[in-house]
């Protein structure tokens, strides 16, 4: 309990240009900048100190793609050597034919994915030329069933929870398979629609209550109360 209290005390709301901490020995993390011996916030959000690392957890803003991110996107074009995918960023991502784990007839790329299809994949490279996706992993590829929902991409870490604890809880309670894209798109695939809608409500609940402390317990209570 005591450790929780101090953790909460360390979190505070910051605005761009505001000094979070002063003094030597601090390292600037995400959303911050070092100016002299001060760590200054660059974004609006909650500041967090862990050891010497100071960072800002943004609560709004666009999705910034990172290498290794799982994303859920929409096929917007089929090219000669791959697909263009809209992942909710200003640039479209590219899924190359080489990154598909099975044989594909070069004349019939549509057989794998057509324009308008939804897909799940992983960002394996980001360069100046663009974002490259891969579906060489189990569970990735064209989405043929289930529902897709959108949340604020800044709340995705909260929905996943520490080492996936939050999402595991939702998965276990709703008996759905859930793929959370870092870009804020979430694919829910369950036995029946009722389960999927229940999972969606649970995720909406988490993203709505993402600011409160001890959310896992609150969610456990909510799940047991709302389960029929």
């Amino acid at each position: 309990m005591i450790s929780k209290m101090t953790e909460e005390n360390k979190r505070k709301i910051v605005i761009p240009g505001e000094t979070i901490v002063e003094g030597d020995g601090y390292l600037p993390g995400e959303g911050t900048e070092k100016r002299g011996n001060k760590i200054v916030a660059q974004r609006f959000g909650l500041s967090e100190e862990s050891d010497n690392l100071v960072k800002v957890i943004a609560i709004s803003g666009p999705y910034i793609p990172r290498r290794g991110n799982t994303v859920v996107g929409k096929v917007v074009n089929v090219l000669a050597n791959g697909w263009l995918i809209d992942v909710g960023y200003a640039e479209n991502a590219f899924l190359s034919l080489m990154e598909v784990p099975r044989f594909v007839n070069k004349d019939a790329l549509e057989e794998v994915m057509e324009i308008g299809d939804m897909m799940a994949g992983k960002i394996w490279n980001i360069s100046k030329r663009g974002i490259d996706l891969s579906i060489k992993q189990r569970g990735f590829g064209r989405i043929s069933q289930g529902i897709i929902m959108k949340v604020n991409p800044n709340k995705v870490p909260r929905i996943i929870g520490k080492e996936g604890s939050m999402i595991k809880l939702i998965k276990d309670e709703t008996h759905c398979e859930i793929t959370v894209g870092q870009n804020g798109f979430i694919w829910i695939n369950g036995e029946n629609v009722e389960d999927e809608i229940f999972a969606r409500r649970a995720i909406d609940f988490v993203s709505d209550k993402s600011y409160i402390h001890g959310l896992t317990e609150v969610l456990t209570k909510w799940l047991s109360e709302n389960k029929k």
Partner: protein
Amino acid sequence: MTAFKRPDGRKIEELRPITAKVGVVPNADGSAIYSSGNTIAIAAVYGPKKMHPQHSQNPEKGTLRCTYLMNSFSVSDRIKPGPNRRSMEISKITEWALEPVIMLKNFPNQVIDVHINIIQADAGTRCAGINAAAMALAHAGIPMKSMVSSISIGKLDKQLVVDLTKEEEDYHVGEGPTDIPISMTDDGQITHLQLDGKINHEQMKEAIEMAKEATKKVYEIQKQALKNALEEKK
């Protein structure tokens, strides 16, 4: 010398009552309303998103695009809606006032759209617009080096005053009215300064010092508005 009297009875360095709130336009990525006395500005931020047409894209850094518009009912004599010479100029000025603090390097080939609407005008609309836009940008999660706060310093005859109203802007006695809108970061660096009228060196320096004090007050209100928005959700 007798104390200078302002029409609304304010002190020389007293600002009009300010209110500010963020998150007023649900469909925008970030938004804010800022009012100073009878002047009310709403700013809405959209993006960053891909710049179109393609030839306007800048691969080196992103673009900030501000659109300042006065609503036709914002002044006592209805004005024709839509952009005009004055509003296009103020749009550009707003871009220049905000660009130095926004980290546009992070958004190549992209554009951040800021729409500023003046729904009621009583002088100092560009300052209100800049203040609202800075809050809306922060609310939209755009990385910034600092906030920007703006205030207009006026010179009525020979007397410097802070935050002019329309009535004071029309004060034609002696040297007449001079309007100096100034925008500053929270550490007092100037991002925008305009001068409409005549002023000497000493008074200009004095005006900047007055703006430093006044923008500090504006900054505190902007900061509080942003913090309140998050505090409510907690």
